[in-house]
């Protein structure tokens, strides 16, 4: 090594050191007090429109390509429970669903399905939520989901599965799409809920079972059943829409006084941690929401947010 080369190398190394130090400092602030490094476990973002927040947040998680590989089939499972307008925040924001579908397609997904077992009649809810139209525009296949009022037409898509991990929910009827898809993306909306207190990522999976199984849920310890269904197949990615949040009289809501514009979005793979964070966003104590603790007991994730590398972004 001659002097010239030595100097060059030294300069490069010095430059790298400065850069890494600066980068480290950035990460430090964003990772909070815990100061963990590496890719984020949970991304919380606020202050923007649903689409831009999603695009920014998914980059922090490693990009859509990390979750969706070429040629895979993807199921996007929003909450399309109610025949209510977008402003009522009873359903997932259609813009967010559409953007997720687009990113899945861009990542090379073969087919992207959108469906939910609705509470109102499915055709009415699909229409007034705006999700069916928005998702179709991006090339998604929108599948009707309501085994009760369209018996014969839709009921056959729900298949029997056994759930050895479940405590109360040993056997249930599950939608074939959730069983067969390669990638399962859970896109709930954050709401107050008269029953289990709050509906978010875990409770949203109740929309993958048949209407009959939903009745079973309610009759056989709802909180335990919600935890059990999450134990059967955990979503590969959860995107919690908290852009508009129904803070009371949920999950259907009565009028505009129930809705607050919070402009939040939470992304991650740990469904329990996400619901714990979501409870904080909507202003509830997560210890009062039974299924979150039960989910932790089943080993679905952690309620201790301090253990996680949380990326907080304000747009």
């Amino acid at each position, binding site marked *: 090594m001659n002097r010239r080369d030595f100097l060059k190398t030294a300069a490069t190394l010095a430059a790298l050191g400065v850069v890494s130090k600066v980068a480290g400092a950035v990460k430090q602030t964003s990772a909070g007090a815990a100061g963990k490094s590496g890719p984020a476990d949970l991304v919380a973002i606020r202050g923007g429109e649903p689409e831009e927040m999603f695009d920014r947040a998914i980059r922090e998680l490693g990009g859509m390509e990390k979750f969706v590989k070429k040629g895979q089939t993807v199921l996007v499972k929003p909450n399309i429970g109610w*025949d209510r307008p977008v402003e009522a925040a009873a359903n997932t924001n259609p813009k967010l669903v559409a953007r997720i579908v687009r990113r899945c397609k861009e990542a090379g997904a073969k087919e992207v399905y959108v469906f939910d077992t609705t509470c109102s009649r499915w055709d009415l809810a699909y229409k007034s939520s705006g999700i069916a139209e928005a998702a179709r525009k991006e090339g998604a296949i929108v599948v009707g989901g309501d085994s009760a*009022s369209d018996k014969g037409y839709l009921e056959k898509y729900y298949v029997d599965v056994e759930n050895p991990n479940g405590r109360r929910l040993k056997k249930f009827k599950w939608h074939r799409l959730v069983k067969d898809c390669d990638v399962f993306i859970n896109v709930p909306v954050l709401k107050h809920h*008269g029953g289990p207190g709050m509906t978010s990522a875990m409770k949203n999976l109740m929309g993958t079972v048949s209407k009959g199984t939903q*009745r079973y849920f309610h*009759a056989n310890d709802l909180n335990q059943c919600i935890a059990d269904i999450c134990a059967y197949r955990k979503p590969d990615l959860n995107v919690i829409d908290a852009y508009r949040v129904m803070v009371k009289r949920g999950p259907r809501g009565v009028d505009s*006084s129930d809705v*607050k514009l919070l402009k939040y979005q939470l992304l991650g793979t740990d469904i329990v941690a996400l619901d714990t964070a979501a409870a904080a*966003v909507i202003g509830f104590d997560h210890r009062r929401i039974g299924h979150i603790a039960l989910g932790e007991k089943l080993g679905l994730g952690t309620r201790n947010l301090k253990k996680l590398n*949380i990326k907080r972004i304000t747009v």
Partner: protein
Amino acid sequence: MRVPVYRSARIGIAALSFVLFLSATWFVKGYEGWYAGQIGSDLLKIAAGRYTLGVLIAAAVILVLTLLFGRIYCSVVCPLGILQDLMMMFKRKFRSQRSYRVLRYSVFGFVIASLAGGFILPLALLMPSSNFLMVENNIFRKVWQMVSEQLEWNMPNQALNPAVSGYLAAWGVFILLLVLARWRGRVYCNTLCPVGALLGLFARGARFKIFMTDACVSCGACERACKSGCIDAKAGTVNTENCVMCLNCLDKCKFHALKFGRGKKKVVELSVSRRNFLVTGGAVAGGVATGLVVSKFGGRTANDKVAPVMPPGAGSREEFLRKCVSCGLCIGACKGHVLTHSSLEYGIGGILQPYLNFKRGVCEFNCTSCMDVCPCGALEKIPLEEKKRLRLGVVHYNRSVCIPYVDGTVCGACSEHCPVGALEMVPYKATKIPHVHTDLCIGCGACQNICPVTPTPAVVVHGVSKQFLVEKPKQTPPVKLKAEEDFPF
């Protein structure tokens, strides 16, 4: 052989109108307004005072056309008439019929008198605009649904599960029609059908009609071809009162003796013998008596505990039972699939009239379909914003079977589905149980439908005997959240 021009034209128009009718009432949503083409329900709607301009015009056009051309309505508009024509397909020869005039006016008198007395069921079963729809909803749609399921065609929203009463009534009508049509052609239209009787009166002096010229040799070819039994070849008369203008006879006459045009020949005179007068008068009196007796003793008393829930816009029980002709257009249009034919829920006076069965569905909050389509004026059109506050019934909560109260687990399904916030979850021990705000409840049945308790849900909706508007849901005070400032975790 001559080309049967008249007959082909009639069949073409009839086929078109039959397909349009089925489309509007079945597979194409939003065109139920075309039902105004049915004179029977139009007249009921006008009598109920809930008509629109379209209904008035439609009724006037049909009556004027009948005055001009006879009962063309019965051949090219009436779906029940066209159905009978389909049933008698390939039947070329009809036995000569007696005149059933006495029977016909007795039936007509009985039906109308019993309607006036307050018992609408005889009219509901005999009027084409209601009983055809019963056949369509309960037989055609059911069969179609079964077929499409078997063949795995993906057809959403075809399901229309018939109620037992509707199913029986529909098959009864269908089999009766089949027997009568194969036996004597359009004998139903000329004896039992109240619309046929009414239009027959208008058609008596029809300006343009089928008549016989002197070329007739009384061979009887036309008489055998006539499905209404209105031609008397010996006497050379055509009874325009019975003639449904199928035009089959015109091409059958080898001597061109039958003509369609302005005929002046031989109107069958209206002779009423004392015997006939007494029979018909007796039927009218009997009808009034039946109507009065049934409406007085046949209905359920206005006891809310057992009352069925009437569709929105029905007003009061008495009013609804008098006006609704049970056609089931609302049942077919109901988005919540909750409306269905009743059996004895309303009592004998209201058999078949629709009620809300919450085992089947819920009265959808953002929907006014039943009121929009009601063809006979039994349901008043109430704007959506008012309908959202219209009390059809009221919820009764039975704590002793409620899951959170009994098991101590979490449920809240009823509160979740309540669109007006009438069921609030309040703390009870470690869980929450519903608390009913009766003043807000509209009786849509969302809670009863979703309640997981079987067989009798913990929340049950009982109908009210008079519908009215309840309070608006209260605005609740806003909530302040930490998350508005910064990340709360």
